[in-house]
């Protein structure tokens, strides 16, 4: 299958635009200190749900178009420009996989570790979120939770998520 130069350019531009929207729109909508309207939030979450697949398809399409360019008689500068466009789409596909809230802002507690009350370094007036499940008591310092926000845990036979 071959496309005209114009068609190849348009396909590449669409790939760049779609991938850019997939990455940028959720970041634009869902950011701290900005009000989120219900409709725009719903759209942003929908984009986040499908962008892994969409950006992969976009990247594969862009790569295909770049290959077509290099196999064609197009001028060198067009081939280089197309390659840069394709590279941008691939970078956006990679960025779509990055959770900025955990990678850049608040890192998760991947493997929560716990200490006995007499071994932990906590001030007596530190505030704690505390639970008791199945007879097992657990505390989560609010200073820690204020950074990580989420801890997936298992207490007294129950899988819980501590949030703050």
């Amino acid at each position, binding site marked *: 299958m071959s496309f005209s130069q114009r068609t190849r350019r348009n396909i590449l531009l669409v790939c760049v635009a779609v991938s850019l929207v997939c990455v940028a729109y*959720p970041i634009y909508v*869902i*950011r*701290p*200190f*900005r*009000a*989120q309207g219900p409709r725009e939030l*719903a759209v942003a*979450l*929908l984009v*986040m*749900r499908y962008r892994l697949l969409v950006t992969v398809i976009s990247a594969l399409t862009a790569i295909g178009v770049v290959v077509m360019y290099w196999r064609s008689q197009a001028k060198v500068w067009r081939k280089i420009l197309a390659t840069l466009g394709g590279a941008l789409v691939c970078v956006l596909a990679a960025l779509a996989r990055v*959770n900025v*809230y955990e990678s850049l*802002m*608040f*890192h*998760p*507690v991947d493997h*929560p570790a*716990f*200490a*006995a*009350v007499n071994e*932990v*370094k*906590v*001030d*007596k*007036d*530190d*505030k*704690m*979120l*505390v*639970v008791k*499940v199945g007879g*097992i*008591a*657990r*505390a*989560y*310092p*609010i*200073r*820690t939770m*204020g*950074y*990580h*926000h*989420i*801890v*997936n845990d298992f207490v007294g036979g*129950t*899988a*819980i*998520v*501590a*949030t703050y």
Partner: protein
Amino acid sequence: MWTRDVGGLRLTFHLAGINNQNFLMRDDETGSFWQQISGIAVSGPLKGSQLTLVHSDELNFATWKAEEPEGTVLKDTPQYASQYEAKDWDVRMKRAPVVIQFPEHGMKSRDLILGIRAFGASRAFLYDQVVKEKLVKDHVGEEPVLLVVGADDQSVRAFRGRIPGVDGSPDFYRLTANKPGSLLMDAATGSEWNFQGCVVSGKLQGVCLEPVAMLKDYWFDWRNYNPKTTIWGKT
């Protein structure tokens, strides 16, 4: 605090965004997005599902340690510990801007409140006022509730104001004498109660009040998710 089991699935949550300054979580298993404050899935295959609340309290460490000497505490993650919040961060956050506002009944957006949603109603209690009163006897909907401040003048718990096996809703009083372990006395039986809502002295030894879930939150966030909330002392 929420359970992680929903519809036969065990979910693992990650921070995924923010919605009017209340954060969103996403589960690895289905990719659904959940609102932190409500535990409701707002997008994805599990949209509309509700996580089950796990009762929790916000207590001062010394108070909790005395109650649970065998308890365990989440340790710091060393590589991020330098970025953890200062001790009074919820107070310092009072100066941070808000993106939604509900200036009703003289409430300021970042007033710290204790919110109870139970018995078909929701009610907010100004935290500073509760700490000052030390014992608040009020109603949420038609049910009597007690908000009890611990001996540390910081920790607060909420209970249903009914004693199992006793008719009606007896009156409770704060003990003024410094008696370790005893905080309240009820007018019906003369029993003394501790901060965990259990009798420590008197004829009802071993009986405990029913804890009521309570959330310490900023007014704007509580009001956003509880539009019909009333306010202790104001409505």
